[in-house]
């Protein structure tokens, strides 16, 4: 079965073509990136997503219809072959969500295909489960709009803990705005990079994300004016404080449910500092992340680590750190030499060039993404 899905709950608009076994045939996306110091508002974001000539003429923005064409072309299929159309039904920003919904309905009328509305949160979790093979993990769902600890209990996904003020991603975004960090590719990513240069920990202890945020915002103005600390120090302190909270609450949920597996989903899950924190909390960790930049030594932290990453920039030597590592990557930019480093390494990638390089290196265990299932059998 083939499905085409449209996601537009926030500042990203994406079209994906997926087979029912979890194989992703194509997944082109565009992000609405606003200038540093500003956020994205629902109206402008919706205009970016849709085919709005007035807006597009001025800004040369990409729009949703070309994305649909691109997705079909990349997947090499025609609309006739599709079995259903899916779209993000919610939760999310109203305006951008409507764009996805309207386009899906239009396509449904044109192509005579049924529509399936998808809950964004559940989609995040299920996607993670399909690709990692995790059976019953505790889920830490951290993104711009959501911060929840979820587990499956008594027949339903249940929220064991959630922020009652603002989401962690929103907290990070607004902090980045205060420091006027770039929104490209994402504010959180730039905080992460800057935090690596920081060392001094400023006291940012509070119990709510919004409390920490207001405190940090004041601190930005005062401490920077007095030159008591650098923006890097503030980023560092900010991350240390909020991620400690997240890992702790996840750990509590794990203890409460008696679960040993964690699945991190959502945009903030890309943050390496958070991943390292979760790795420190328990063994048998499943990591699911996009745009992960690994540093040497990370993998040494826990045994039986399953890394699943898109757009992974690997550095030579990383893979040597942990045995029995299973890497599942799309669009992987590997440097020659990396592949020789690790024993029992299983690479699963859709990048043909990489597969060729690996074969030359004498590494037999490189599988194209379509043999996804075999890999999970191998793991079991």
């Amino acid at each position, binding site marked *: 079965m083939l499905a085409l899905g449209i996601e537009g709950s926030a500042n990203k608009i994406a079209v994906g073509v997926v087979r029912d076994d979890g194989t992703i045939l194509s997944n082109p996306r565009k992000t609405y990136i606003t200038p540093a110091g500003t956020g994205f508002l629902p109206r402008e974001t919706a205009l970016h997503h849709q085919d709005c000539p007035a807006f597009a003429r001025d800004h040369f923005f990409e729009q949703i219809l070309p994305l649909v064409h691109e997705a079909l072309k990349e997947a090499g299929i025609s609309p006739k072959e599709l079995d259903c159309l899916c779209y*993000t*039904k*919610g*939760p999310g920003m109203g305006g951008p969500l409507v764009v996805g919904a309207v386009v899906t309905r239009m396509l449904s009328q044109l192509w005579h295909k049924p529509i399936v*509305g*998808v*809950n*964004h*949160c559940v989609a995040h979790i299920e996607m993670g489960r399909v690709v990692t093979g995790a059976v019953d993990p505790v889920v830490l769902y951290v993104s711009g709009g*959501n911060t929840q600890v979820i*587990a499956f*209990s*008594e027949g*339903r996904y*249940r*929220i*064991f*803990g*959630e*922020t*009652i003020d603002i989401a962690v991603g929103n907290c990070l975004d607004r902090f980045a705005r205060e420091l006027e960090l770039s929104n490209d590719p994402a504010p959180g990513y730039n905080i992460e990079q800057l935090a690596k240069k920081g060392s001094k*920990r400023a006291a940012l*202890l509070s119990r709510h994300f919004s409390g920490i945020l207001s405190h940090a915002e004041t601190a930005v103005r005062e401490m920077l004016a007095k030159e008591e600390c650098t923006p890097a120090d503030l980023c560092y302190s900010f991350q*240390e*404080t909020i*991620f*400690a909270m997240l*890992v*702790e609450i996840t*750990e*509590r949920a*794990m*203890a*409460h449910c008696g679960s040993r597996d964690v699945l991190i989903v959502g945009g903030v899950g890309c943050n390496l500092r958070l991943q*390292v*924190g*979760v*790795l*420190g*909390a328990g063994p048998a960790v499943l990591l699911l992340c996009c745009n992960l930049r690994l540093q040497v030594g990370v993998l040494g932290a826990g045994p039986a680590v399953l890394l699943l990453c898109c757009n992974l920039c690997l550095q030579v030597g990383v893979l040597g750190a942990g045995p029995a590592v299973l890497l599942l990557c799309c669009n992987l930019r590997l440097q020659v030499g990396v592949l020789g480093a690790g024993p029992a390494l299983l690479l699963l990638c859709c990048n043909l060039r990489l597969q060729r390089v690996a074969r030359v290196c004498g590494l037999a265990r490189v599988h194209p993404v379509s043999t996804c299932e075999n890999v999970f059998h191998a793991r079991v």
Partner: protein
Amino acid sequence: MTEYDPLEALGAYDKLVAQGAEGRVFEVLYLKKPTIVKQRFKKKYRHPELDAKLTKQRFTSEARSLLKARKLGIHVPAIYFTDAQNFCIYMEKIQGQSVKAALFNGDLTPEKATTVATQIGKTVAKLHDGGLIHGDLTTSNMMLKEGSGELALIDFGLSFNSILTEDKGVDLYVLERAFLSAHSASGNLFESVLDGYRKNSKNWSSVYNRFATVRARGRKRTMVG
């Protein structure tokens, strides 16, 4: 010279009962009494400075809160000894099973479960009226004493003093979430909890009003989609 480790001397490391989120729990014989030792260890995922501060703060407040709860007439473990160097609290072992276990095992008849829920409400009301907030009210932190069947509260690691209705409301909200997420099959037990609270609290109306606002504050309640 190796440092003297009181836990090792008691042979605690062979008797690990549980490793929770807060710390490790050992069961030893201390002064000939069955004793639970709760040890807070370093959390590697946290910044050392932040970790030291939080550990110390929670260790002290747990010991103080246990004492305070006892003075309020709530069944809590008696403290035998505190070791501020190793952040260990030695306390009485409460014989019995947790409410969570009791509900899952099906040991409780529906009537008995309702009685227990009412008892939970009564205990929490007493705690709140005394100006103490538990901070982590879940059914795994409540024990049913063997024999008497009385309800005892454990794990005061996140508790603090407060007379604000806001804090009491949040405390109740945490309990409600715990009930809904883990015991939804056991029927509407939380109603009985609130019932017990209402009958025993001096500040029912103000606490309940605030609890209602906290509840409404929960995000994405409707979960459209």
